[in-house]
């Protein structure tokens, strides 16, 4: 039978999560290696005290690595988790709900993480929890 032309499905859905998962994976590799290098090789033999940690966290590079690692881990993990959760559903509303939940969870995690770092950056915490 002649095929009827199929109604076009929604634009780029699917492309961004796929692309960003790969981008975040690449970044993850960089941040994890940087993290491991810093923790295990850059301060060999040094005593770890509150003071030394504070000194480190006052340097932009360390903050960048920590914040970046956090953001990338959260995105990569939650994007993957979303994939798993929507794997067996064909219901668009359910997919939207899961996506929203992941975003809320991700932003909250990021905010909490940044809150821990914030006293070192601004001299006082962002939030008073």
């Amino acid at each position, binding site marked *: 039978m002649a095929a009827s032309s199929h109604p076009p*499905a*929604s*634009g*780029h859905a*699917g492309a*961004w*999560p796929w*692309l960003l998962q790969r981008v975040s994976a690449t970044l993850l590799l960089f941040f994890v290696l940087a993290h491991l290098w810093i923790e295990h090789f850059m301060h060999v033999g040094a005593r770890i005290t509150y003071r030394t940690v504070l000194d480190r966290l006052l340097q932009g590079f360390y903050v960048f690595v920590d914040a970046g690692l956090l953001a990338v881990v959260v995105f990569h993990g939650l994007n993957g988790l979303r994939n798993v959760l929507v*794997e*067996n559903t064909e219901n668009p509303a359910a997919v939207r709900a899961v996506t929203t939940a992941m975003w809320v969870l991700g932003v909250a995690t990021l905010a909490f993480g940044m809150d821990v770092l914030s006293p070192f950056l601004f001299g006082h915490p962002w939030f008073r929890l």
Partner: protein
Amino acid sequence: MGSDVLFQVMRYDPRRDVEPYWAEYPVAVDDGDTVLMGLMRIREDIDGSLAFRASCRSGICGSDGMVINGRSRLACKTQVAAVVSDRGRVVLEPLRNLRYVKDLVVDQTPFWQKFRRVEPYLMPEEPRSAAERPMVLPQAEFDRLSKASDCIFCEICYSECPINGVDRGFLGPQALIKAFRFEFDPRDDGAAARYAPLSNVEGAWRCRTTFNCTDSCPKGIPITEGIQRLKRKLVGELLSGMQPAYRTPMPVESPEETSS
């Protein structure tokens, strides 16, 4: 004839049976005989009412895909001796992920609809001309296209793909490898027309690279690799801001005239 092998076949006639049941047939099998030869013997000598599709007998026409001892395969390319050892018998079921109709017959309609959805043909149609058009491609690239065009529409990848199992909307490996074959043909200019069906949640992005299609393809087509290349091409198109073109039916051509 050699020894007897037990064929255990799922049978069901929607007009007569409430539900599918197993039938067992002892079939005389020689060394090197295929499962299809056994099925033909059942139909000719034991029970003529057994329904299964078959045509070329040599793995080219793609008619006789079925689940043989738990995996989707072509009955004409599967030797009895190669599968009988694991269960001591040959167990035959219809292909998965397609609606069951009778005995070993499934309804292939969704498979063909999805194939048609990716606009699987070279675009645009060149104006008729008697001129030769040389096509120079690196040998590796030509081989890749040639391999992708080996697809015989047997539906085995569709039956083995777990995504097709959970998501009726997923285009499936066959439609995607077919799209790949045209998207990477240097003569083709149909990317915009195929963008909408390919780049969406039921298209290439639904593939989870389980490699079941590649593992099961009777023609040995590296389907997953093709789909991944397709994804990379689609991302490129996304980032370059491609505007999907929705295909209108082909314009009515003027009737051909007899040559000479």
